[in-house]
């Protein structure tokens, strides 16, 4: 058997609330060509419609503070 290689891609959002707390949100299988404009529009949409709230006393959503795309390549070695 040959080595098996898999790739796991995750998009990690850092939500920041008005009390300064941050929470992370992860999405699997992000596109490779995500643009800053798309993130900006998503941030604006969430703010305009109050769709995200914090878990500490319902803290008001501030902004998407950071977005990180993490690619992890895993190779399972054929040792037989």
């Amino acid at each position: 058997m040959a080595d098996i290689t898999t790739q796991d891609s995750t998009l990690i959002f850092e939500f920041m609330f008005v009390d300064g707390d941050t929470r992370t949100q992860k999405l699997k299988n992000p596109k490779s060509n995500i643009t800053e404009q798309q993130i900006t529009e998503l941030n604006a949409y969430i703010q305009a419609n109050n769709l995200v709230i914090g878990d500490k006393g319902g803290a008001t959503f501030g902004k998407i503070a950071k977005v990180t795309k993490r690619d992890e390549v895993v190779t399972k070695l054929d040792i037989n």
Partner: protein
Amino acid sequence: MATSLSIKGKTQANDGVTSTINYVNPNATDAQLVSLATAFNNLTTNTVSDITRIDKNSLINTVEKLSRNVQLFAMDQTTPITEIKASAIGDFENAAFVFVRYNSDDYANDILSCLVPGGTDQNNVFIQIARGESTDNGAWILLTNNVTPTSAFTLTFAIAETSTYQAATFTIPVTL
């Protein structure tokens, strides 16, 4: 209380994928949730047309409340107080002023009480607590009594729980 949103779809490899969006406002309309799910899903390689299900799940059942930080200061709001002299609690002219500093989300409406062991009377001392103007970081407290105490006792200040902060009590000895 926040809510989570689950999106089930398929990737280009045609395997099943579930994306979960946390901290969703439970008061959002279904139409808004669909739009939110679509907006997030458009950032993925999950096939949009294969969003098969959106579930509202209660994610957070308890609200973590912050703890209180309570301190007692003299009138200068700087000198910490570790005990109160009974002689300072006299009639109105000789009453004791203390400043209670504590963290809060609404100082003006925080419920602050002063408890005397055994009720309002302790060794024939009737302690009255008058709350002065609340400031950005605490409240003025005026302590008065009708009779000079004959033995030491302990005062307990209690601050009620709010939507953001836990309740708290702290005690201070009253010495002769």
